[in-house]
């Protein structure tokens, strides 16, 4: 205690928590520090990174501020693996989880640190951009801006580019009122508040990233012409993913099962239905779930899968 100042400082009061790794800091604090750390790792390694979503969207007023569970960064695809290795050297590791099929393919890797309350999502691509990953990243990088986050300079996409990312994120979730409101907010900014150069930037990033068709409703709302820049097969994948993404991976498993040769279908079906204790997602790789926990996870998964397939059947696909 600093006598006379009538209170305590945390390391005195809860020093064991700090030393023991159970630091008590909030998600907001953790996310800001994580963005600063990611920028620093990028600078140290010479790997280009851009912080996205979360604090970036909040500061650009692209959405109503809310506490994110993770810090998102998009990384130069050419050096993505190298960046992930560098992040690991800072104590961040992957959650234990098996690879599951994804309609649009994997787009990010989630890292955790046992003494931090948040995750870091390192993106190699952002869903909704259908151009080559490197082309998308280079376009975002070309017009990047800088924000001070946790008193550190952090590279971020321009406001127009961040609006594209915010809109792509919002349109991915077809049943979420919050995401519908966030899309509405981006539309309002584009029509009422954005300077002409921000609006031009928005349109160009969507054009180069081949995201015009995905954002067609937004383009219509703001009265901008757009091109259909995604082929029919990918349109179908996007629509199916959009209709089922909130239900987990069941539809992705079904899609994989359909495309698998007959002699391999039993193996795929087995993997879709059964998950071993060792494969159950968890933060601590050294702690195997108990038998009871494993069954609870499987039953929850089957229930979610059944709901997802019901949604899928109703959607007529």
């Amino acid at each position, binding site marked *: 205690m600093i006598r006379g100042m009538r209170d*305590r400082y945390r390391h005195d009061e809860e020093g064991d928590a700090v030393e023991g790794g159970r630091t008590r800091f909030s998600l907001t604090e953790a996310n*800001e520090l994580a963005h600063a750390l990611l920028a620093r790792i990028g600078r140290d390694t010479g790997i280009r990174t851009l912080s996205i979503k979360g604090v970036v969207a909040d500061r650009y007023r692209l959405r109503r501020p809310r506490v994110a569970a993770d810090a998102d960064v998009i990384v130069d695809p050419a050096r993505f693996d190298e960046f992930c290795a560098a992040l690991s050297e*800072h104590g961040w590791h992957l959650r234990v989880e098996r690879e599951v099929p994804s309609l649009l393919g994997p787009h990010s890797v989630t890292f955790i640190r046992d003494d931090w309350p948040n995750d870091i999502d390192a993106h190699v691509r952002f869903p909704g951009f259908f151009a080559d990953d490197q082309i998308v990243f280079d376009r975002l990088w070309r017009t990047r801006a800088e924000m001070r986050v946790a008193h550190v300079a952090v590279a971020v996409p321009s406001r127009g580019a961040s609006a594209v990312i915010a809109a792509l994120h919002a349109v991915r979730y077809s049943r979420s009122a919050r995401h519908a409101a966030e899309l509405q907010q981006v539309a309002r900014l584009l029509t009422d508040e954005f300077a002409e150069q921000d609006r031009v930037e928005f349109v160009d990033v969507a054009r180069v990233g081949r995201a015009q068709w995905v954002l067609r409703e937004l383009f219509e709302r703001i009265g901008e012409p757009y091109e259909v820049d995604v082929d029919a097969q990918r349109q179908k994948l996007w629509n199916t993913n959009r209709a089922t993404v909130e239900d987990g991976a069941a539809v992705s498993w079904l899609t994989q099962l359909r495309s698998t040769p007959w002699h391999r279908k039993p193996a795929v079906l087995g993997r879709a239905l059964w998950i071993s204790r060792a494969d159950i997602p968890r933060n601590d790789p050294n702690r195997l779930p108990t038998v009871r926990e494993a069954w609870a996870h499987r039953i929850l998964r089957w229930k979610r899968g059944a709901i997802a397939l019901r949604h899928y059947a109703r959607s007529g696909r």
Partner: protein
Amino acid sequence: MTGRGCAVVDIAEDVAWTSNERRVVAMDLGSPGATPYVLEASAAAVWHEIAAAGPLPADELLSRLAEGFAVETAQIRGDVESLLTELRARRLLRG
């Protein structure tokens, strides 16, 4: 100040920190695997004073804090020195 003469205190270059009025969370970015360090209340006030006025001599920091909290410097010297030592050891402060 005792033991360090009149060292100049400042926030280290490699530090990321976030704060509100009552709380600061700081981290040394130069040390891989460093853990964020939480300062609350008077410790946060010390940090805020350094952030606002630094770099500044430790004696001046002490005077400013004493004035701000309406206490004698002797009352807080030991605890402030202890905090500064801790923050230097964690590479959050230089000087």
